[in-house]
């Protein structure tokens, strides 16, 4: 034909062997597959893709291990402990002031009250430790849910590249810290009698003014 050889890039060596565009011996063309062979090979390839996608998911989520969750617990405590410590220090001062107003700040009563306040403080710290463990468990569940979703997505798409991208995106989203509300005033109930006492003491008008020059109940006296 006038347009020459349609097999662009391929040629024929002098000895008749097929060569590629660089003159290297061309690899023999694979034998054509029958339709059943094509079907089974495509399905095998799909299953291999799903397995590869699952491996990508496992790899992307491997960072969510025990040290990761231990670090999360520590972060949880690091957020809440300073708040409770500050509140405790403030509460100690308020209690000290309340006891001093009553003149019992160096007494066994004060010792009992400080002990009760410390008990509340240690209870709060215990709660924070427990909540940190629970929060870490909740995070484990979220990680597992995300992983399951990706497994399902990978099986549906059979596209390991997409599964890998999704896995990375979701694992990155998981490390975004959720919003944690700061602590409220945890010692308010304990200190309320003292703050009420303090306020009442401050607001007390006391006895009315009485002139030291007034000797009787008469309305007044004229100095002559």
């Amino acid at each position, binding site marked *: 034909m006038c347009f020459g050889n349609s097999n662009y890039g391929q040629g024929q060596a002098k000895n008749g062997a097929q060569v590629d565009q660089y003159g290297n011996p061309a690899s023999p063309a694979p034998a054509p597959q*029958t*339709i*059943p062979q094509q*079907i*089974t090979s495509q*399905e095998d390839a*799909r*299953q291999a893709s*799903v*397995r590869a996608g*699952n491996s990508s998911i496992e790899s992307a989520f491997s960072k969510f291990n025990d040290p990761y969750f231990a670090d999360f*617990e520590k972060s949880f*405590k690091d957020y809440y*402990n300073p708040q409770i410590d500050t509140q405790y220090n403030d509460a*100690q*001062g308020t*209690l*000290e002031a309340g006891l001093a107003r009553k003149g019992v*700040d*160096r*007494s*066994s009563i*004060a*010792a*009992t009250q*400080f*002990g*009760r306040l*410390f*008990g509340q*403080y*240690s*209870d709060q*710290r*215990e709660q*924070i*430790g*427990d909540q*940190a*463990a*629970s929060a*870490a*468990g909740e995070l*484990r*569940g979220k990680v*597992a*849910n995300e*992983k*399951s979703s990706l*497994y*399902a997505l990978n*099986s549906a798409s059979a596209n390991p590249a997409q599964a890998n991208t999704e896995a990375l995106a979701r694992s990155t989203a998981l490390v975004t810290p959720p919003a944690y509300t700061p602590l409220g005033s945890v010692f308010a109930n304990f200190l309320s009698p003292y703050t009420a006492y303090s306020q009442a003491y401050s607001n007390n008008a006391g006895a009315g003014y009485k002139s030291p020059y007034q000797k009787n109940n008469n309305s007044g006296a004229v100095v002559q």
Partner: protein
Amino acid sequence: MCFESIIPLAIGTALSVGGGLLNKNENDTNAANIATARNDVLASQLGKNNVIANESRGVFNDRLAQVQPAATGQLQTDVTGQRANSINSNMPTINASTFPGAADSSSLVKSSVAKAIGDALATSQQRATAHAKLGGFGDTFQRMGLQDTDASNKIGTSIGFAQANNALTPSLQDFAEQETYKPNSGIGGLFQGIGNAFGSYAGAHG
């Protein structure tokens, strides 16, 4: 019936019967080959699914081993210990000297403060131990649930593979049948035709 008509009739009958038998034999052989081809495809697909089923069975057996009483007990011990560590490591330490008024209080008051906060801490620690033990039950089942989810992910993938193989099986069997099927040679039919001709001849000259 004369003798000259008996021989053609006998030949015709023999050819017809022989042709029928030949047809039947070819049909039977063809049907047997088709059945073998379909069964081979089925066996191949079942073999693939058997490998997948063995994988799933392995995952399930591993999970089953994890829920044996000893393993479950160990898991509960571990997770309870982890929660206890999380709680206990967050408990405050006793330092009575940092309390307000500690410097200028009498020794009696100081010892009272030390005892009061010591008692309070002991109570909190008892509560922490009980809290960790209580939370350990929930933690155990949460971890078991996570292990179930992990096994489900793996087995679910295998189920998908097996279902896909099953879905392909009828089509692959049909292809195998088409490749195996061979039309009859026609020799049997030819014999039957010739036999009929002999029969007709015998009838015309009988």
